[in-house]
């Protein structure tokens, strides 16, 4: 008994030593800042607070109330939802279609195609946003030149408030579809072949096989991919920062870009912290929704 107790104590001591570096880093630079941000969102921390902490006062929910009364925040929120609601399904849809094509039995050079499709995922977002900014140029951009062949006149993609966000969505889909494609390919290869064999014996068409076998078997993967994409897309920042600075007429201002500008350009840190927590609340909601749906799907 005594020996066993000593063994357990030794195990605990070793485990604590192994955990100490990672957990102290996470505690100091993750847990503490999250808690601090929460407290900060209830203060009037601004540029004076930056110089002298004693000027900072608790102001209750006033930051949150002010944010909800700011038309610009609603603009940023609706822009972000626009990006998420159109961009994420489009992104996932393209990923699924491409995954089905690459995974088709008769497809050749699968590895090569997969690599080509995946490459944009690893590139730096800032670099490709700059490339696309030039591709979208109204006079010299390749895109308008190509559209010219089809008889479509020059379009000011990033200068038109109605088109700037679709242009950013298009860039995001181009950059990201390879990632979800890989997850879909993995999901597809997990579907047992004999299901398709049996369907073929019953004379089911390719379309019927897709609707009756592929889609249902892929549902857990799809739920996972959709939520992963939603959560990532809510954090839209670098594309508008580099391509449009949130313009034209704030048409591409995102929640994170607004938080960045309030916090790090105007030093309204209490106000910015409240914006960050509203974003967190939205992401949390969708994460919980995913867990709920996943449980339903798997049950």
């Amino acid at each position: 008994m005594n020996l066993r107790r000593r063994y357990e104590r030794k195990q605990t001591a070793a485990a604590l030593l192994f955990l100490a570096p990672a957990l102290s880093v996470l505690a100091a630079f993750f847990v503490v800042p999250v808690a601090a941000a929460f407290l900060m969102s209830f203060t009037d921390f601004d540029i004076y607070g930056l110089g002298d902490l004693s000027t900072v006062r608790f102001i209750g929910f006033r930051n949150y109330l002010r944010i909800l009364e700011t038309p610009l925040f609603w603009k940023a929120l609706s822009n972000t939802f626009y990006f998420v609601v159109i961009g994420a399904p489009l992104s996932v849809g393209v990923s699924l279609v491409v995954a089905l094509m690459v995974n088709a039995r008769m497809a050749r050079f699968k590895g090569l195609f997969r690599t080509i499709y995946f490459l944009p995922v690893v590139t730096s977002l800032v670099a490709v946003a700059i490339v696309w900014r030039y591709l979208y140029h109204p006079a010299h951009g390749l895109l308008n030149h190509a559209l010219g062949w089809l008889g479509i006149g020059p379009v000011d993609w990033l200068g038109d408030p109605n088109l700037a966000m679709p242009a950013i969505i298009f860039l995001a889909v181009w950059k990201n579809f390879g990632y979800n494609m890989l997850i879909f390919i993995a999901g597809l290869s997990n579907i047992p072949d004999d299901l398709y064999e049996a369907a073929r014996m019953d004379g089911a068409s390719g379309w019927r096989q897709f609707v009756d076998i592929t889609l249902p078997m892929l549902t857990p993967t799809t739920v996972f991919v959709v939520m992963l994409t939603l959560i990532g897309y809510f954090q839209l920042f670098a594309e508008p920062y580099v391509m449009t600075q949130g313009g034209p007429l704030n048409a591409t201002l995102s929640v994170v870009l607004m938080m960045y500008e309030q916090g790090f350009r105007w030093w309204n840190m209490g106000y910015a912290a409240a914006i960050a927590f509203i974003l967190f609340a939205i992401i949390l909601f969708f994460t919980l929704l995913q867990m709920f749906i996943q449980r339903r799907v798997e049950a």
Partner: protein
Amino acid sequence: MKPAVRSWLLHAGLSIVAVLTMTPTVWMVAASFMSPGEASSTPPPFLPAHPTLEHYAALTDRLHMPVYFFNSFLIASSVTLVSLLANSMAGFAFAKYRFKGRDRTFRLLLSGMVVPAQVTMLPLFLMMKKFGLVNTYVGAMVPGLASIFGIFLIRQFVRSVPDSLLEAARMDGAGEFRLYRTVILPLCKPILLTLALFTFMGMWNDFMWPLIIMTDDARYTLPVALANLMGEHVLDLELMMAGSVITVLPVVILFLAFQRHYVRGIMLGGVKE
């Protein structure tokens, strides 16, 4: 439809998507070799008439690109090394030791993944300011020094290591740390490589935190420098493309060289308990 026609359609589709996917990147490389102003002429050329290296030379000689490259490399590789050590130790502890509250702590850690990084940035900046770490390499590294995803990845992997292997080493008188160094680390090589790739590429491409913490031009990482360069040189398209090539090339090479290991990380990240 005849199988031959279907196959032809499928490969046409695959090729069109491939061309669409590659066009921006290929054009970026081509334009970086064009003479100043060439890419903006009408009709826009796709290939340089007289390839030139002058933009690469300008970036190297006048615009401090080697400094930014060094900054990016130093930050990304240091974070990779340190976080690999911290994450693998913690992942090992969660996988192979029995202690009170282990599972609860681990679950709590996992739930932390819900919190978007942007939430931490305001207080983190104030902390760094207090410690005098604004505009320093250490300040830029701090948020990456340990990662929940990394710990999770290692733990899943180490759980598949049979306990008998550890017991055998203990019988031979190995201490716990030697166990980690001589048994666990060598076995973990593939997952460590995967995690190293993820960490390095993630840090290399990271934008928001270096943008916040690096206030002085000399400390910028490549993405921050590039975004900043855009302000002054927006009209120098060819120069900006050369800068983008330099920023993108190292990670693309890394990915092509270790593709298999990188892809495994995505698969493991998608697998639930």
